[in-house]
């Protein structure tokens, strides 16, 4: 893989090569998706592992994010005498930004790392080479199901995160700080739009799921076959997916506005 290079590697060239290889890998995965449907059980197992097993952390974090938003925004809005808008502000910021982004960051930490470590160890212990020798396509059997599982699981997790966040904000705003229950809900329902706010947030989380899963699978698949290589690959998964998710969030927000 890393043969002797004629020149010292340039940072920019390396980065470009990584991005290019990642893009080509995405094409390979997409081409392998129809074949991977024969291993649909593997995809289901990955949805269970990356999605359902992440529910606890997603729900806990969603609840606390909602509660913190409730407290902070209540304080800020009370300066302007606008605490009635608490439900609106919390739900809009959750649906449009915090839900998809925070879920994607948690997803990268909880599921992305374990995908990278698992595939990296498969690479390091020559299991992937063994699959190739047995004429089992590792892209269709290993990479594609994990990618699909990320795309399926992320929007569902983001929706659960949002729902728990609204619950947390309601708990703080209505139950503790004494905001009127009817005002909280009616202001929210009158200004939140299902297509512009809820569905655009879901599109964002689909894109983030694809990006995080692609980076995790790619880092694992191309890791240096040593224990140090797996460690670096796992770190890179978290660093790269965090950066790409936040950058992509800006681009998507600008387009979906």
């Amino acid at each position, binding site marked *: 893989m890393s043969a002797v290079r004629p020149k010292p590697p340039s940072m920019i060239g390396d980065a470009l090569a990584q991005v290019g290889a990642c893009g080509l890998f995405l094409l390979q995965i997409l081409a392998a998706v129809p074949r991977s449907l024969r291993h649909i059980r593997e995809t289901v197992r990955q*949805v*269970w592992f990356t999605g359902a097993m992440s529910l606890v952390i997603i729900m806990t974090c969603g609840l606390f994010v909602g509660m913190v938003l409730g407290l902070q925004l209540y304080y800020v809005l009370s300066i302007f005498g606008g605490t009635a808008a608490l439900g609106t502000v919390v739900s809009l910021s959750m649906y449009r930004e915090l839900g998809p982004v925070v879920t994607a960051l948690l997803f990268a930490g909880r599921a992305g790392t374990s995908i990278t470590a698992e595939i990296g160890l498969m690479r390091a212990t020559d299991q992937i080479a063994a699959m190739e020798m047995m004429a089992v396509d590792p892209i269709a059997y290993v990479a594609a199901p994990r990618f699909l599982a990320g795309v399926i699981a992320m929007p569902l997790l983001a929706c659960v995160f949002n729902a728990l966040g609204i619950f947390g904000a309601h708990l703080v705003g209505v139950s503790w700080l004494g905001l009127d229950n009817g005002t909280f809900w009616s202001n929210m329902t009158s200004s939140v739009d299902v297509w512009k706010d809820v569905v655009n947030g879901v599109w964002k989380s689909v894109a983030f799921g694809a990006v995080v899963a692609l980076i995790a699978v790619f880092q694992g698949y191309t890791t240096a076959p040593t224990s140090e290589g797996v460690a670096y690959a796992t770190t890179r998964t978290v660093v790269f997916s965090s950066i790409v998710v936040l950058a992509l969030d800006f681009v998507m927000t600008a387009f979906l506005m």
Partner: protein
Amino acid sequence: MTQRRSYQIGTGLFILLGFAALAYLATQTTSIANFQQGPSYTLKARFSNVGQLKLRAPVKVAGVRIGSVESIALDPGKLDALVTLSIDKRYAELPDDSSAAIFTSGLLGDQYVGVQPGGSPEMFKDGDEFVLTQSSMQLEDLIGKFLVNGSPAQKPAQPEPDAAKPASPSAHDNHH
């Protein structure tokens, strides 16, 4: 085999939970929650200026929501705004001399169409048009008028352009 079945069931439950959360968010916390489900009929109203009126803005009688704005279009012939209102069938008994006006909820809130019921014995039918309408109040116009006319107590009947002129260079000087 039983272990495989258990995680398959778990995955199914997870997907179900995710979609339930999505359905909850979409139907209970958005404008769909106060979207009337029942049959409705349409009324039309012409305004010379709709201001910031948006699609799906509420239509209210006495402050109670009876429908929503279905479409806002420019009439190419008369060059005024033709607003189509979708009114809940439950409120079919609107006198046909009722008037429609665009109001703002609060000082800077969203705009809505307020209907002032008239006294005619005839009721609106599907597709009818409001005869009496009042356009949205433009805050900018009001401010502009106020600035041009000045306070009526100081300069009762003479909106002299010369009187206003000495003020403007000094305003410019302040900016520099």
